[in-house]
């Protein structure tokens, strides 16, 4: 019992560090380990993965007394889309055929992966190239943050707000209906569609996915699929890991974060497409 607990704490630590750096929930790391390596039923793995998302989000929130990287306005405005999407997705479970959606969302991730490679090949992280659209001005979404790896203040503008809002609705819908990929789509909506710099995108995604996950967490909490002996050690490991991860994130160059992001997104996208065709792993 103690060895299982220690293993879960270690897995949580790793997932927390990775999740806080990339703005993803721990689901992609935790679900395969719980189901494939530990033989846990998928129902309980999803319950544990939802708690992991919240722990990653809350752990990275408290790493700093004042978080100067995340964009609270973008988070709250887009949160309207994700939470409504998440509720609709959860309600439509069993009505829609998920196969097509897996393939569709998987392709979207591969597309985003391709876009990220293009940005990497373009060289330096570009932040000042876009002009904000009228929505960004009206909603006061433009922001600035202090980049601790470049040691300078970065002002940025966001564009294509309706596109980002729609993508966020899709992200919420996918996480409500399919239970995965919420963080990946959130970063994609902000970084690829709205042209926000990667660090604020990741930090903002981190905050948002906690709120979205809380919306569906009560379902799993009250229907008994959150096993305390699994979820508690995981959550404790992740909380500590996420505090460490969000500190690492601030000092890492954005380019390095993007380099880690590309293979992870490719893996998740491929996994979703395969799942759509009936091949399942994790």
């Amino acid at each position, binding site marked *: 019992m103690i060895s299982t607990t220690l293993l879960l704490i270690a897995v949580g630590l790793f997932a927390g560090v990775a999740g806080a750096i990339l703005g993803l929930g721990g689901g992609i790391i935790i679900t395969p380990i719980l189901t494939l390596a530990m033989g846990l039923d998928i129902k309980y793995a999803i319950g544990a993965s939802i708690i992991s998302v919240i722990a990653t989000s809350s752990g990275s929130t408290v790493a700093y007394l004042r978080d100067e990287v995340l964009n609270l306005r973008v988070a709250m405005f887009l949160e309207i889309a994700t939470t409504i999407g998440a509720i609709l997705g959860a309600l439509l479970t069993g009505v829609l055929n998920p196969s097509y959606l897996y393939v569709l969302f998987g392709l979207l991730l591969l597309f985003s992966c391709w876009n990220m490679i293009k940005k990497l090949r373009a060289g330096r992280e570009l932040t000042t190239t876009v002009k904000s659209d009228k929505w960004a001005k009206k909603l006061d979404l433009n922001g600035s943050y202090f980049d601790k790896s470049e040691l300078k203040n970065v002002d940025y503008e966001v564009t294509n707000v309706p596109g980002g809002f729609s993508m966020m609705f899709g992200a919420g819908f996918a996480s409500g209906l399919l239970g995965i990929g919420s963080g990946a789509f959130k970063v994609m909506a902000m970084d690829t569609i709205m042209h926000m710099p990667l660090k604020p995108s990741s930090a903002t995604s981190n905050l948002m996915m906690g709120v979205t996950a809380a919306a569906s967490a009560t379902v799993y909490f009250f229907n008994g699929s959150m096993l305390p002996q699994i*979820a508690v050690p995981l959550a404790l490991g992740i909380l500590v890991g996420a505090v460490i991860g969000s500190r690492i994130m601030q000092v890492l160059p954005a380019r390095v974060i993007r380099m880690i992001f590309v293979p992870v997104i490719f893996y998740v996208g491929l996994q979703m497409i395969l799942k759509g065709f009936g091949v399942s792993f994790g």
Partner: protein
Amino acid sequence: MTSKNKSQSTDEMVSVERLIGRILQIGVFTSAIILALGLLLFLMNQTTGYPAGTHPKTLLAILQGAIAFKPYAIMMLGLFCLILTPVLRVVVSIYAFYKEEDHLYVVITVLVLIILLISFIIGYLGF
């Protein structure tokens, strides 16, 4: 966070943000301590406090069990507190925008909170 507000001093905004950061830290630390306490009791006593393969699922059963120091009940209580931390985040954000006199975002954030509460009701009733 960018400060849109012109009438208030930046110093006051910084202190509001610090206060909010402190509230969030207290919320997350409290959850973590309850989780750790439950896990320690579970490992030391080698018992869950409940029949094998079951754990308390209703809030009432969890609270009753936590008062009786049953490890699984304390662990579930910690998980429930953790689930509430993002909600706390939304609530204190409303306060922050209110202090910044950013009325548009007070409305937007209240809307998020309402949607969240609706989802909690749906979750609790088990649709």
